[in-house]
């Protein structure tokens, strides 16, 4: 009798658990370094949650969709301290999540990718614009959501050429990443028919970014630095290190516009972008985070949404299946850029339009009209298939 009762009870428990099936849990990691990058402009200082705030919004969006599909998404954020081993941290995180959004410098990203190669964890690069990660150093387990320096440079060059501002005075910072951006801009000038009339280097001699009488000094320095230039249409500055470019607009010796790292800036996203329904994501982001949405926020949002898009299509949270779907021909994502974004299958870079912004408004969106391509106009931005050095493995 008792045995019979137990059987009935356990049967009913089994039935209940079948009816109220638990949702599929999909864990997504966010791996970044602690601390924020310095900026010359106080209004552009990144928030501490720059990037991960976008990932959080995408988790909310994925969960709204997930409740109709019995899928639930969870974000786990890991911040690396200085000198902390990235490979070890990535491996620990990968024990809990099948996907990692990476906001890491190139070398760190490669260490993480190689540490996770056998495990099948998918990395989505939201933070690094280094071209080499998509070229000679590409990896089969890394999808790149951030645009490359060459995509950004090409987007800017197309517009400057369209405006007939073809003679560039070119000013390059003295740090490694400034030189990489300069390489991309030089390549863009050659590709689209602009001419660098002269190149100057702005040496970083150190010193504080903020001083009490800074403006007076800068107002004397910048005209001197830019005088006696050959005739030019636009000053193009490569200063990723935030040392000088933002001081150039309105202070050049000749009255000329500034572009590149200041003035007209190419970027994947901006808080002023309101076309193609973007006002909705801007509103959602401000509501959740009480600040404006940056390019890094958008790159992280897109990365998390790509995972959500895949899991909704294939009805599975399995990292291998998601990776296959994302790399396959049926993947595309809507990200408020006016057209669908897809992956370049030769190096796993997300194709995307690039905004050109002046700090307050979106001035234009590249690719520009008339720059044609046999596959996708978006492939007029960055390194194209015939030029690629990437061998995915």
């Amino acid at each position: 009798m008792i045995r019979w009762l137990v059987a009935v009870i356990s049967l009913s428990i089994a039935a209940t658990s079948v009816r109220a099936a638990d949702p599929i849990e999909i864990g997504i990691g966010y791996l970044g370094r602690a601390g924020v990058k310095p900026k010359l402009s106080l209004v552009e200082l990144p928030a501490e949650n720059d990037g991960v705030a976008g990932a959080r919004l995408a988790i909310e969006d994925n969960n709204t969709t997930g409740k109709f599909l019995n899928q639930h998404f969870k974000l786990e954020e890991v911040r690396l301290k200085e000198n902390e081993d990235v490979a070890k941290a990535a491996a620990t995180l990968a024990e809990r999540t099948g996907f990692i959004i990476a906001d890491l410098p190139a070398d760190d990203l490669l260490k993480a990718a190689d540490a996770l190669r056998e495990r099948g964890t998918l990395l989505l690069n939201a933070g690094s614009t280094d071209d080499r990660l998509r070229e000679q150093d590409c990896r089969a387990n890394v999808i790149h959501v951030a645009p490359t320096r060459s995509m950004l440079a090409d987007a800017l060059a197309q517009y400057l050429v369209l405006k007939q501002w073809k003679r560039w005075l070119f000013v390059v910072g003295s740090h490694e990443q400034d030189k990489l951006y300069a390489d991309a801009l030089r390549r863009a000038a050659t590709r689209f028919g602009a001419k660098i009339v002269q190149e100057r280097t702005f040496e970083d001699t150190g010193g504080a970014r903020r001083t009490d009488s800074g403006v007076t000094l800068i107002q004397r320095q910048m005209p001197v630095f830019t005088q006696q230039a050959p005739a030019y249409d636009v000053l193009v500055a490569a200063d990723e290190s935030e040392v000088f470019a933002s001081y150039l607009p309105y202070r050049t010796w000749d009255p000329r516009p500034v572009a590149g790292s200041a003035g007209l800036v190419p970027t994947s996203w901006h808080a002023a972008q309101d076309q193609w329904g973007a006002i909705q994501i801007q509103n959602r982001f401000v509501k959740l985070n009480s600040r404006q949405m940056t390019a890094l926020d958008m790159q992280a949002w897109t990365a998390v949404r790509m995972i959500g898009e895949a899991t909704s299509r294939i009805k599975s949270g399995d990292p291998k299946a998601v990776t296959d779907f994302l790399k396959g021909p049926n993947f595309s994502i809507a990200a408020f850029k006016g057209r669908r974004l897809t992956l370049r299958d030769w190096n796993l870079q997300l194709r995307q339009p690039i905004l050109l912004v002046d700090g307050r408004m979106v001035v234009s969106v590249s690719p520009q009209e008339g720059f044609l391509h046999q596959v996708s106009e978006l492939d007029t931005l960055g390194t194209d298939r015939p030029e690629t050095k990437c061998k995915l493995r």
Partner: protein
Amino acid sequence: MWRCCLLSVTAAWLAMVTPASAFIAYVSNEKSNTVSVIDTNTWTVTKTIKVGQRPRGIEFTRDGKFVFVAVGDDDSIQVIDVAKQEVVDTLPSGPDPELFALDADGKMLYVANENDNTVTIIDVEKRTRLGEIQVGVEPEGMAISPDGKILINTSETTNMAHFIDTTTRQIVANVLVDARPRYAEFKRDNSEVWVSSEIGGTISVIDPVKREITKKITFEIPGLRSEAIQPVGIGMTKDGNTAFVALGPANRVAVVDATTHRVTKYLLVGQRVWHMAFTPDEKYLLVTNGVSNDVSVIDVAAQKVIKTIQVGELPWGVTIAQP
């Protein structure tokens, strides 16, 4: 002498060409915050009505006496009195209304609130909110089944067509469609519901009984990259035989044989073609062209664009009164 003759000739000519039924079309101009009134007899704008901020979804009431227009940035739906041709009232729509659907007898209004992931239900006579339904991210397209039992809402970032039971106000099914579903349209015989996916570039044909996609319609235009083909508005003839699909920045309206689901023709219209409305006799189809700031008039039988009418900035929606 000349003037008198000219006048009488003009009068006679007018009497001759004036059709028995002229219709009035209302067009919402998203950027200029106005509604243009078009006389389909003369194909001219006869009046421009000032409305609230960012007018988009626009619909005649069933009795033809009023026009509802969703003014998203004012978080409300305004009521235009057709006789007075001015805004006379406001409905409590919930935040950021974009598109809405009226039920068959015109008493209940269902509004998509883009910012809030909800659909708001409004009692039109009492001007009150009856409730809300939680849907996916960025609800947009709205359509009611011919029998009035099912409301379809599409959510742009969730990429679903939600089937909502209008009696219980519960979601009864979710059909996953391609990216950024914008608009839903039923066939009159309830045999199909069509959902356009702007970014996905397709129309999903859904069986409303099985609630499954039975067919996907795709579009190919020589010389255009597939990313530029973005289906938005759909117009379906009453007999369910022919459909017209606005293809956004492709600047074309596709003509689709709605029985075979084959595209038979592409009509070149203005830039960024968005939504559309038939005249009640189905002789003409009016489509809004957002970037070129005009409305194209399509002769439905001839499948030709016969006229372009300049309206306000960024024309978005269009509605024509039933007689």
